[in-house]
């Protein structure tokens, strides 16, 4: 089946599709590409392209960018030989890429939060209200909570800021770069993907460093962007499978890029 048919169904199922998004559009290939199967993923790495192609999946639906900048402005990267190599790899495997980012975050529920909560072992029964992304856990320490998150996710490069002995229970989950502000008095811990370390519009990990001096329990757990948002692409695959029964649809994980010394 043609990519156009699949994209048309995605837009119809999503409802209120905005074609003005710089993100949610074709990044390679187009309407006329014949699709043999669909891979969802967080990042279209060259590794993901190879593995998707080997599995007979030539349509890739990523959450994030393909050419190392958010709007996929190819002028930024086209002088780099790696860009040409990536294009050649896509061409060789007759890949079509259609990104779903903004619309995914507008969906209710937003699959990225559902996936992230599952990945790190945040029990949905502790969520204060559906889609609030706020969890009130039985009181624990920041150290115990972080260890639970790391054990459950298996992620190597989780980073934590704050006093490991701080007693915490009120958690706000963010995803990717949409990191909630820690200077909210009703929160003990923010868990998210990544966020600017300084010079952000709102706060920074330094806030958690200074919290003990004020006797306030605060913690910041950063999962990394890929770990934070990849799990929800499983829900995305299941969702697409529901209205595209003609071809196989499955998650092909990009995985965590980092290791730690």
């Amino acid at each position, binding site marked *: 089946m043609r990519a156009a048919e699949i994209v048309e169904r995605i837009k119809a199922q999503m409802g209120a599709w905005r074609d003005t998004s710089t993100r949610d559009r074709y990044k390679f290939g187009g309407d006329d590409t014949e699709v043999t199967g669909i891979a969802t993923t967080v990042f279209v790495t060259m590794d993901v392209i190879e593995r998707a192609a080997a599995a007979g999946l030539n349509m890739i639906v990523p959450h994030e960018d393909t050419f190392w900048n958010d709007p996929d402005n190819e002028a930024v990267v086209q002088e780099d030989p790696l860009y040409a190599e990536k294009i050649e790899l896509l061409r060789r495997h007759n890949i079509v890429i259609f990104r779903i980012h903004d619309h995914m975050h507008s969906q209710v529920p937003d699959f990225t939060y559902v996936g992230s909560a599952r990945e790190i072992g945040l029990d949905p029964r502790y969520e204060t209200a559906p889609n609030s992304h706020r969890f009130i856990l039985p009181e624990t320490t920041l150290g115990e909570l972080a260890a639970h998150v790391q054990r459950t996710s298996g992620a190597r490069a989780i980073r934590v800021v704050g006093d490991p002995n701080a007693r915490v229970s009120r958690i706000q989950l963010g995803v990717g770069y949409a990191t909630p502000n820690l200077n909210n008095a009703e929160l003990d811990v923010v868990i998210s993907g990544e966020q600017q370390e300084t010079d952000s519009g709102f*706060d920074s990990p330094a806030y958690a460093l200074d919290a003990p001096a004020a006797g306030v329990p605060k913690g910041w757990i950063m999962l990394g962007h890929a770990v934070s948002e990849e799990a929800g692409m499983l829900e995305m695959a299941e969702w697409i499978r529901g209205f595209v029964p003609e071809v196989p649809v499955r998650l092909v994980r990009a995985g965590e890029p980092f290791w730690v010394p």
Partner: protein
Amino acid sequence: MKRITRREFGALVAGGVVAGVTAGRFANGEEAVAAAPRAAQEPVTADRIVARIRSGIGVEWNPESIDTFKAGDPAAVVTGVVTTSLATMEVLREAVAARANLIITSGTTFYSRADSRTAPAGRSGGAGPAAGAAGDGAAQTPAAPPPNPIFEAKNRFIDENGLIVFRLSDHWRARTPDGFALGLAERIFGEGAFAAPDGPIFFDIPATPLEVVARDVKTRLGGRGGIRVIGDPGVRIRKVAFLPGTTPITASLAALPQADLVIAGEVREWESAEYARDSVFAGRQKGFMTIGRVLSEDPGMALCARWLSDLVPEVGVRHVSAGDPYWRPVA
């Protein structure tokens, strides 16, 4: 390519002001101190010190930059200077213990770019999905800032101890060579960094496996959980490029092809981390490390203390490390 020796750099920065003080390198790697008391000097105020910084820094001063006073009275007499990459409460306490009242920091003191002494109204962090992930920050729900105990504690400590906080970031970075990159290169590898014109600072090392370099970087910087690496641990590294601070994709695109390893501060993961991952998958013999902005700027602020000790002979100048803000639950 130009090699930079310590002596040349000293001549470059001192601008003829010689106080006969060169900082020692201490066993713990901490560079600093020049605190020998200098008797019978005129008292010096914070704004006079900043005036010397502005005229001595070697780049045109941009008054619109973030490099301004953030707290305290600029007209107050300075008893001692502390440089740091992050003026945490712990760093402020150490400054007070050392009887220093002027803090020169490359990072924000009040947590956001505005660096205002009151908490910003901002993202609610409350109910409702935060919008947009990559690239656009997050949903903004303006709300009046409630009383904030963390801001209050820091403000109280600053006021009670008569501290003055000045941010020095943009101009230290704009120097040639970049003061942060030079400090980082020398902390990790010693003297011998060199710079391409308008390019990053490089350092050549004997071929060393990436995992060995990564462990060494962690040790030299006193890293805890903030250092993350991309690349085959066994790949042999010869040329290292330094991109401390915040690293946009354009900087990584310029540096990684010219080096075997880039040591960056903070990146946007959807940019540089994925570019590095693809580079490695495509067969480039490369490594990429992101060590965090605060940690990456720490040695540069130690270098800044050495520079300031010549510029401000009246009082002691020392560097206080904010350390690596991050830890990891499982080693």
